[in-house]
């Protein structure tokens, strides 16, 4: 019964990727990431309902925590970081919005073709689950490499991680309650630390452009001399 619902949810997940690739407003993007997180929680619940006759409390708990953290807590942390750094829009991305959209569309098409063979048969409950997960991962990577703001890179990581979780759900892979909670905790702490770092970077550099975070490196022309920490010590 719920297979059709699940197909719809997978398609919404895929559509969210397209919105992410083509949108410049940060708050909007963060809301889309939150939506993806909630969808993942719902999918987790539904997929377990399909494969097991009885509802295990651990499954329900995992799905609830998953949806709660990814759909509520993480977006809240991101929005707080954006507010504190006072940025609204992603300006001048490295890869333009229409081009990003085209790339993601092509990726989605390629993923659909790639997953058409019978090598996935019996492992996944929906023809679109694995392609949607792969596309979400690609979108995350695209956001990391194609955007200028450090905050968008943090968001890209979240989308990438959502994609991996989606892959796990789509393939009915269970790594166990403790491991899934551990992964969620890691992601939560990572976003928390990233938020604090963004605040400090914003204060020190007075901008959040990741491409200007390039003072370190070996292949830069006119490389400045290594920083002298102290002229006179003691």
């Amino acid at each position, binding site marked *: 019964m719920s297979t059709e619902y699940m197909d719809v949810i997978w398609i919404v997940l895929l559509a969210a990727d397209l919105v992410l690739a083509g949108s410049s407003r940060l708050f909007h993007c963060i809301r889309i990431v939150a939506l993806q997180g909630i969808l993942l929680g719902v999918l987790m619940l539904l997929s377990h309902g399909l494969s097991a006759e009885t509802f295990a409390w651990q499954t329900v708990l995992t799905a609830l925590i998953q949806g709660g953290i990814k759909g509520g807590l993480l977006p809240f942390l991101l929005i707080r970081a954006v507010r504190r750094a006072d940025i609204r829009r992603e300006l001048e991305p490295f890869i333009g919005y229409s081009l990003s959209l085209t790339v993601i569309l092509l990726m989605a098409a390629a993923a659909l073709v790639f997953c058409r063979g019978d090598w996935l048969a019996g492992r996944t409950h929906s023809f679109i689950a694995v392609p949607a997960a792969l596309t979400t991962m690609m979108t995350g990577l695209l956001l990391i490499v194609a955007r200028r703001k450090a905050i968008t890179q943090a968001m890209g990581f979240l989308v990438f991680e959502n994609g991996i979780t989606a892959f796990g759900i789509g393939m009915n892979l269970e790594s166990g309650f*403790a*491991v899934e909670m551990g*992964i969620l905790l890691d992601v939560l702490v990572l976003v928390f630390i990233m938020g604090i*770092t963004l605040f*400090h970077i914003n204060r*020190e550099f007075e901008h959040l452009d990741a491409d200007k975070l390039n003072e370190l490196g070996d292949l830069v022309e006119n490389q400045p*001399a290594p920083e*002298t920490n102290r002229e006179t*010590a*003691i």
Partner: protein
Amino acid sequence: MIAMLLILLPLAAAAGTYLAGKRQKLVQLTYGIGILGTALLTGIVAAMPENPLCRFYFRGEWALGVDRISVVILILTTLLFLLVSLHIHRWLPMEMAAHAAAHHTRMTALLRPNHLGAFLLAFLAMMLLVILARNLGLFWVALEATTLVSAPLIAFHRSQHSLEAMWKYLLICSVGIALALFGTMLLMAATPSAEDGLYFDHLKTISDSLRPGWFQTAFIFALAGYGTKMGLAPFHTWLPDAHSEAPGPVSALLSGALLNCAFLGIIRFHEIAPVQLRGFCSQLLIALGLLSLLVAAFLILRQDDYKRMLAYSSVEHMGLAAILWGLGAAEITLFHLGGHSLIKMMLFLLAGDLLLGCGTRSIASVGGLLRTMPRHAWLWMAGIFFICGTPPSPLFVTEWMLVQAAPLWLGGLVLTLLFVIFAGMSWIALKMIGGPAAEPTPAMRQAERFWLLPAVIFAAACGGGLWLLWQCNMWVR
């Protein structure tokens, strides 16, 4: 049970150190109890790894414990932490005084001592969890956690550059490790039934029934992911920044302890490879190792920063370790990791002292160390020779074994690159200790007093190398 304690004790000590706040004595006390207790428990676990008391079972599966490979890395990690903690105990007050003297006008703050202690202990706890974890999912969680708790240590100085290095470290390592999570998921998809789970020892027994296509993809992603954290080229980009910006003792831990832990992930995946894929996995490891060696050789030659030079040397040695493992020489790989950890720790501690004394990381601005900081100059020169594999360094033996075991083209190529690196590093070291010198400043004189610990480590490396050489002759005979 003791394995569980081994993780909980440093975590509890980290919390205690954090809560101690500004009470210096209490911070030192909790930190000391944490590190000494961990050392004691490590000793117990290492002495009887087979004992059920030293293992932890979760629902009948072996969840925490050591085998003959991870026990070596366990001992190394705790030993490094113990030595670095000894160094930090004397180094921190001086670093803070120097910082206060230089920045009295600007409002920059270092990481507070209790935060430093807490992050260090949490870092230790997470690394121990990485080493003890028998579940590949738990392994991933722990390795990502090491990134999180060590990131604040890199931004110890809170300067622009260190923040940049910390951001790169967080982002590149997290994305890289996320690839390994995908690899772990693919590994689960490769198992014949959904109930197989991720327990390493179980997977090892069913390795031949893993689906080869899925496993191949899983291994590639795991190699890319854990390779990022381990510093294999071309995923090494975060490493020189993080190692050069972090304070000396932290760099010593990152380079000496953390890289080994990440390598353990690749080792685990390699060990469960089905027989028909062993060759493929080994070839991939050798290819990446060779690439790391190439990148390191090229970039060491054009360095103007002695801490970055050491960081690239870590890339080189991780490459060598990957080649050794790819060639199937497990024991030699462990000897190589041990030798590298000890010598690199000594070099990073020395580099931290040089930075404290001279106030710069630029090779061109540090000159005449032989007159200004003579003990450090001698140790530095000797350490550089040792890390390049001059006998009686333990690395000489392992590199010699590598060249012996490798096919002719590989051995020749590795040897050539090792010579290039040797020439580059010793030229840089000679530039630093020779040349015209000014009168030693008070800072130099103070930093010079920290020579004893590096000297002891050097003596230990020397002894280890001589023992290995002797063993080697026995083997040949």
